[in-house]
């Protein structure tokens, strides 16, 4: 954010590469398996095969209608005019009728083609957008912690957009270009073998140019895609942190930081346009030279009487058209390169396997042993370390009987949240198993898992929509009555009822007008509504005031009855409702016992508790 020197993307290339060796996330280049980009494109287009074929056919017919023009001209000059002079009006009438037909067909087919291809394109985009979205949602929390939201947003907006451009214009360009090359070459060859051969020969240098352009533009476009993603990351971060930006007068420093990223995007953008300019000059030179050569030769042959004047006229008209699509080929390559760079990034994202995968053969939780909602939790020889190394939780065993409320305390970084995340299956253990009523969490399909375990975190994010909708995230099929009951149980009903539209109040952008404490209450109501067997509260009351926390605790005392609960809290008041306390330090459980027992002892918890009592004054 601030000084350019400290922001990784601002470093010059070599430094970037040095970092990239450590962590691909730093440079926004995820490993893409070779051929993944092509495979992605193929898999997107595969279900559309038939429709792509129909669309191509429409375009083929349309081009046939359009390209018939010069042929009719040649026929008119060489046949119809002499026939007309001989009072035979038939051929000229035929030319007129033919032209009329071709014009109507060209227009009608054009309409049909655009409409049909738009359907294909939009379906492909729908598919791709959905895939990115679903995949991003399926990827585990640790991925999200590393991949930054700005990049994900960039993947599903600007990167999809560049594929859209390719599909909207590019593919049509390509088909038109290829078709007209084929058509016109065929026509030229048919009109005159020699002239046609020369025209076809001119494709060789053109092909070389295209290849060179592809290579150079590809590099530039990849740089550009990375550059715009960096711009987006910065943009999103600033807008989401607008209050501190304001309060700490970061505006000017941000402007400067943004300018660096923005300028880099500007530079790559300019590079891309210049590559295009080079290509256009080169291809036009080749094309115009070929036209001059062919006309010269053609003229000589007319002089020798080995070529009809009409045929030369038609050939010249065709020649002009032959090279018309070169620019459009450039445009296609343009969109193609840009889309390829984007697709590569998307493919890289889609190639990420969730580190917390869905089970191939999901199991069901066993029927409950008692009428109580709770279930037994067992950490069986669990150890957790980040993939990058660094052990967070050394191997441990822990059993929480069904219905028990366990408070986990300890200083920041002691591993409390990691324990909770393992139980919620945000992470999977590096070793060992986490069992819910004897079933490994890894064997549970997500809906079943969430009937079992729900976690409420301290960051009480609200989605846009109404308050009621936000609570209903806990259980989408809940009735309004059930939603209100949950809100009442947690003490959130009063403030919600006081909102302008009550439960139907739109919380707008991340609940800007709903205080942090109120948001936590909504988050609680959500969890209550979800009605899980095991409830995890990760510092979920930090922003509540004392009465709010009391209300929540009172509600919890009833709600948690019979339910298994893991409560992580630095407020020891929460401990009052716990049956058991775990004290963690450096990833280990150092004390374990009933609250009263520990308080009476001389351990860390007794100290903590004393400190807390004192803080209450």
């Amino acid at each position, binding site marked *: 954010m601030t000084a350019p020197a400290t922001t990784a993307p601002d470093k010059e290339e070599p430094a970037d590469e040095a970092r990239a060796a450590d962590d691909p996330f730093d440079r926004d280049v995820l490993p893409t398996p070779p051929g993944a980009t092509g495979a992605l494109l193929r898999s997107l287009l595969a279900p559309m095969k038939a429709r792509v074929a129909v669309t191509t056919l429409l375009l083929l017919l349309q081009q046939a209608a359009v390209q018939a023009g010069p042929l009719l001209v040649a026929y008119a000059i060489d046949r119809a005019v002499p026939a007309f002079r001989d009072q035979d009006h038939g051929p000229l009438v035929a030319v007129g009728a033919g032209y009329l037909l071709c014009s109507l067909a060209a227009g009608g087919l054009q309409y049909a083609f655009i409409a049909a291809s738009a359907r294909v394109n939009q379906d492909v985009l729908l598919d791709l957008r959905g895939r990115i979205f679903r995949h991003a949602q399926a990827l585990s929390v640790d991925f999200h912690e590393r991949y930054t939201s700005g990049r994900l947003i960039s993947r599903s907006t600007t990167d999809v957009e560049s594929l859209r451009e390719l599909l909207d214009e590019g593919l049509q360009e390509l088909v038109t270009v290829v078709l007209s090359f084929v058509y016109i070459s065929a026509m030229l060859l048919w009109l005159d073998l020699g002239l046609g051969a020369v025209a076809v020969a001119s494709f060789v240098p053109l092909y070389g140019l295209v290849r060179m352009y592809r290579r150079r533009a590809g590099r530039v476009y990849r740089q550009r895609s990375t550059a715009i993603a960096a711009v987006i990351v910065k943009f999103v971060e600033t807008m989401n942190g607008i209050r501190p930006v304001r309060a700490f007068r970061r505006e000017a420093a941000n402007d400067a930081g943004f300018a660096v990223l923005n300028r880099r995007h500007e530079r790559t953008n300019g590079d891309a346009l210049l590559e295009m300019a080079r290509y256009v000059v080169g291809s036009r030179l080749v094309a115009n030279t070929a036209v001059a050569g062919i006309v010269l030769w053609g003229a000589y042959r007319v002089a020798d009487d080995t070529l009809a004047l009409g045929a030369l006229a038609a050939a010249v008209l065709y020649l002009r058209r032959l090279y018309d699509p070169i620019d459009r080929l450039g445009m296609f390559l343009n969109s193609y390169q840009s889309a390829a760079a984007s697709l590569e990034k998307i493919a890289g994202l889609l190639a990420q396997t969730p580190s917390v995968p869905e089970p191939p053969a999901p199991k069901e939780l066993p029927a409950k042993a008692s009428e109580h909602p709770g279930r037994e939790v067992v950490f069986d020889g669990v150890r957790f370390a980040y993939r990058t190394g660094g052990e967070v939780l050394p191997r441990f065993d822990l059993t929480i009987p069904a219905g028990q409320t366990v408070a986990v305390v300890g200083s920041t970084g002691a591993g409390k949240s990691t324990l909770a995340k393992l139980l919620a299956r945000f992470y999977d253990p590096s070793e060992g198993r986490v069992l819910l009523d004897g079933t490994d969490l890894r064997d549970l399909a997500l809906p079943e898992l969430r009937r079992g375990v729900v976690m409420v975190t301290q960051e009480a*994010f609200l989605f846009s929509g109404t308050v009621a909708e936000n609570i209903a995230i806990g259980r989408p099929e809940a009735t309004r009555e059930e939603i209100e009951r949950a809100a009442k149980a947690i003490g959130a009903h009063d403030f919600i009822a006081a909102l302008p539209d009550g439960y139907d109040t739109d919380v707008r952008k991340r609940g800007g007008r709903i205080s942090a404490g109120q948001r936590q209450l909504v988050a609680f109501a959500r969890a209550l509504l979800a009605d899980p067997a095991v409830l995890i509260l990760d510092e979920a009351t930090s922003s509540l005031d004392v009465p709010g926390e009391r209300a929540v605790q009172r509600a919890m005392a009833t709600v948690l009855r019979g339910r298994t609960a893991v409560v992580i809290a630095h407020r020891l008041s929460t401990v009052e409702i716990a049956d058991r306390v775990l004290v963690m330090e450096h990833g280990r459980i150092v004390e374990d016992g009933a609250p009263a027992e520990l308080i009476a002892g001389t351990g860390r918890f007794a100290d903590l508790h004393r400190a807390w009592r004192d803080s209450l004054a």
Partner: protein
Amino acid sequence: MPTTPVSAEDRSAVRSLLRLWPFVRPVRARLLTAAFVAIVASCVGLVIPLVLKWMVDGPVADRDPAGVWLGALYLLLLGFAEALLFGLRRWLVARPLSSVEAEMRAALYRHLQRLPVAFHDRWPSGQLLSRGTTDLMLLRMFLAFPLTFLLVNGVTILVGVVIMLVQDWTLGLVVLGPAVPVMVTCAVFEKKYSEVARLAQDQVGDLTTVVEESVLGIRIVKGFGRHRSQARKFRELSRTLRGTELRKARLLAAIWAVIVTLPELAIGAALVVGAVRVADGQLSAGTLVAFLSTALALRWPVESIGFLLAMSQEAATATERYFEVMDAEVEAGVAAGSRAAGAARVGDGGTSQAVQALGEAPRSAEQRVNPGAGTNAGHGGGLRFEGVRFRYPDAPPDSPPLLDRVDLHIRPGESMALVGATGSGKTTLTALVPRLHEVTSGRITLDGEDITALPREELRAMVAVAFEEPTLFSASVADNVLMGAGEGAGADELERALAVAQADFVHALPEGTATQVGEQGLSLSGGQRQRLALARAVVGRPRFLVLDDPLSALDVHTEAAVEAALRHVLADTTALIVAHRPSTVLLADRVALLSGGRIAAVGTHQELLRTNAEYAHLMSGRDEHEELQEGDDR
């Protein structure tokens, strides 16, 4: 064939696009030169058929080899000229157009950073982002192609028409026949198209918002296993977008169909008429070839007008969307340079503030020379709220204000805890001090000086804030903390601030204080982030400190240590501290109770505990009689 591409119905689009002028101005010379070059290149393209005619009628018919060579040489030269001119045009605009896009994006970013916080509360950042990315790309493309080529093609068509009319008057008129119907249909469709285009762009913005939320709220989505319902929401929106895009495509297809068919029909008619006249000997074969060659050469310029207009329409809506944000009033008193010339429009809301700020600026400038002037003012010193009322600008005008006559005086060097029930407006009250929101009426003074009279920069330098939600930016720990200090603050200040906030953990991070945190760095726990945010607030030794529940995420031991260190800082700082708990309240010298939009009571913690039932309830969470019992026990 249409020679004036923009018809009367499109004038509003033109008006929108004209607003781009301030951004285009710096590159106008390049752009004009490029357009001129493009016109010349197109005209060169039109001359080529004339050379062909000359060859067919002259040297070829006369069997004159030297003439044929000369003709071919002309062709070659013209071809080279055309190629180089095309390249020159692109070379001329490549850098300038990228810079226009970048400039507009930077202006948007600058502007957004200075818009009132209330604006950001209303606008989802996805909508803002889509304006800063896709919309601006559309505009760049508009400047690169449609703008130039509407002109170039217009001129090309005009020149082509003149050439055709000169060659053969009758045939020329036949070819011109469909011009009027084409123009009329285009106008009708373009109007519809622009509406659909706008709808599509807005829907893209909505989709972006869903993506963003689902990413930012990923823990909740995962915690409740709501992938499916999020995915459903996303699918519905993207389906709607697909529908809109298809409608757009059908309109575009209709325009294309008309533009392809009608001119082609005219050319067919010209061919028949021309052939008859060649047969009658009134016309040479060479002229007919040249004429048709010219007509066919014009086909692309004519056909392209359809999509050029469509692109222009999209660019016009993109411009509208862009300026919707750029027209929003920035906070008064912020450097006016942040506004792009011509982009600012004085709205009714901001005028009075702007005038006020301008009017009082000289006074504050004087006081800046003598910074001690305010501090000695005994009765007006410190932080004072006088009859402060506040209602969110977008709240219904008849709703009761959130804050209603708040009167509170925090003496210089005193720290005041602010206590109140959840949702009572504590956070809002703190946001008024650095003017993140503007008071509806009443005034707030710092050492006797009205905060509205201070330039915001200066005000925010005087008042440091730690927010409830500790946001860290993608930068090193040191940068994140030091952004609270002025220029030149160094390692000493950093260490001191980290010590106050008990944030020693940073030294254990992989790269110490140089470790990257924030969205693109290491993710820290809530308690760690909160301590860094606190360090950021105290690092600049501000005269005024506003802390919004600064210790909520800390564990008991850390909290006690932070409190001990914070007491030193607070000893000579005027501070307002939002507190939820007795431990935090005890940091302060006195407590104010915010209730029903007013300050209901002020006193020490003990006083209020004894005398104020609501306060006692807030601090203990127990009902009053319980509280009394506890008092008896003591």
